[in-house]
């Protein structure tokens, strides 16, 4: 059960990090996150139907595709409202979500879709544990993506610039960082990651154009738990959510499992608004 929680956590990190990235750089809550995830899943489905492409390979195509989509979206739309009142960006991105969702309804209809691969029902025995192969693959793919991302964030100029902008927008601009370009990149990256996570989810769940709402709430719960912007926070938040969810099943009905994320969100809001990491920091006397 612990292992399965960790596997789920890997997925949650990929799913949530895009949200944290965009919030960090632009202070925007990306309400179209769910729409992007859903669209990523459907593109993976279409690739699978048309070319018998494995969703794992599909997700590798989806990632750059949606990176481009995000950058274009930023240049055409988001850039114009990034500096206006939060209410404007919220409603705009919410409108975008509705558009994406309903375009998907028009194209793919409202039936449950799923992708079945040769290994969908296989499982691996490790000692006394029996693990579904799909979950292992998703975890590995997520971990690989995160490793690349961690390297990118800590070792390249662009990655460092993204982190600098999330820490302080004005100071970064004064230091000569092209904040406009960084914002476009961050939005693209966040969108790409959301779609990547969406296409990985096709291995585990069936989906409809409505899909995403629950995952978006989980992603929100994760980033609130993690303190909204930090990479480590997202990882800790994901692990926490996954653990509480898998152990929660022992105590509550399975149909209520999705409520755990909501419950955790409220606990976080009441007791640790700075996220889990702020608890460690304040204990060490650091800044909260």
């Amino acid at each position, binding site marked *: 059960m612990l292992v399965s929680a960790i596997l789920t956590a890997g997925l949650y990190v990929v799913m949530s990090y895009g949200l944290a990235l965009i919030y960090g750089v632009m202070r925007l809550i990306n309400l179209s996150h769910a729409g992007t995830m859903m669209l990523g899943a459907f593109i993976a489905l279409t690739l699978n139907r048309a070319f018998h492409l494995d969703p794992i390979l599909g997700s590798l195509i989806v990632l750059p595709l949606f990176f481009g989509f995000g950058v274009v979206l930023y240049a055409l739309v988001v850039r114009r409202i990034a500096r206006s009142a939060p209410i404007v960006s919220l409603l705009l991105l919410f*409108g975008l979500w509705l558009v994406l*969702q309903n375009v998907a309804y028009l194209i793919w209809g409202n039936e449950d879709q799923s992708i079945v691969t040769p290994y969908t029902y296989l499982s691996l025995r490790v000692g006394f544990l029996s693990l579904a192969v799909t979950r292992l693959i998703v975890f590995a793919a997520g971990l690989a993506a995160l490793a690349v991302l961690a390297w990118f964030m800590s070792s390249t100029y662009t990655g460092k610039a993204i982190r600098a902008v999330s820490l302080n927008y004005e100071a970064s601009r004064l230091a000569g960082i092209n904040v406009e370009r960084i914002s476009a990149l961050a939005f693209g990256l966040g969108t790409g990651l959301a779609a990547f996570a969406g296409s990985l989810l096709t291995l585990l769940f069936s989906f409809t154009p409505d899909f995403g709402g629950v995952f978006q709430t989980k992603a929100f719960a994760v980033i609130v738990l993690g303190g909204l912007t930090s990479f480590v926070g997202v990882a800790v938040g994901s692990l926490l959510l996954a653990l509480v969810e898998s152990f929660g099943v022992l105590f509550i009905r399975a149909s209520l499992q999705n409520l755990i994320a909501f419950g955790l969100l409220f606990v976080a*809001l009441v007791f640790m608004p700075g996220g889990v990491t702020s608890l460690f920091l304040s204990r060490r006397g650091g800044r909260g």
Partner: protein
Amino acid sequence: MSRKDAVVALVLLTILAAAPYLLGGSYLLDLGVLTFLFISQAIAWNVLGGYAGQISFGYAAFFGIGAYTTGYLWLHGWEPLLTLPIGAALAALFSLIVGLPAFRLTGPYFVIATLAVGLAMRVVALNTEAITGGASGLNLPTQVPGKAWFYYSMLILMSGCFLISALVRRSRFGMALTALRLDQAAAASLGVNVALYKNLAHTLGAVLVAVGGGIYAVYFQYIHPDQVFGFEISIGMVLMPVIGGLGTLWGPVLGGMLYYAIADTLLTVFPFAHLLVYGLLLMIIMLIEPRGLLGFARLVPSRFVMPRRARHPYPLAPDSSVPSE
């Protein structure tokens, strides 16, 4: 409410009150009941969303609480009208459960919390069969007054919402909401208790929406979690004021009228993708004129009549501010 607004409102009210006698027909009554309900919801949402600039995507929770309180108590022998205050009180309580932790913090927490609550309440309602009937819904008694009764009670509800919204707008409370929308830090430094006023606005909206939910339950005599707690209810409450004119007195009224008329047509033309049009509309409004139709309307004559400075009846924020924490 200026004198002009009051006169217009009274004239409209008289026409609407007389309409069933002059025109008759049960279609008109049905149309009236639902349109008034939508408008009253839009006005209620606008207090927090428009005046205070705090977007909530979770108002369906209050609508559902109102509907289910009335439904449940009615089945246990209560007079439906007497259940409305109970539903309102429960909704107020619930609004505080959401608002107290979320408004304590600045930042995007409230929006996130409302999205979560909106989705969660539907799941909760589906899983508490003892009270809500779960997925099979709740059949309510069938002895109800005629359609005219509902027409007039919704009209009264809508007028009440309008009056409250107009009074709030002119009061100290309303000014505090506007101040905290424009610049929360500045408002707080001038002694506005930001969290208190946000909570008050949230609760006020919740109470009004819950009363509408209660009457809705009696009108339809059947309630289902997917319907009264549905995300579409919350989306509608966001869309109506935004289409009409966020934070204005008449915007929600205009938006509510349009919304119901358009929604009805779109639903028959595109059963699945009817929200596509609203999504696009929302994006266009936000990109071009975030103040909605009333904003557009004011743009046109202002070129000729009004001086440029007077063109901003509803500033969304002080000049383009850089995001900060």
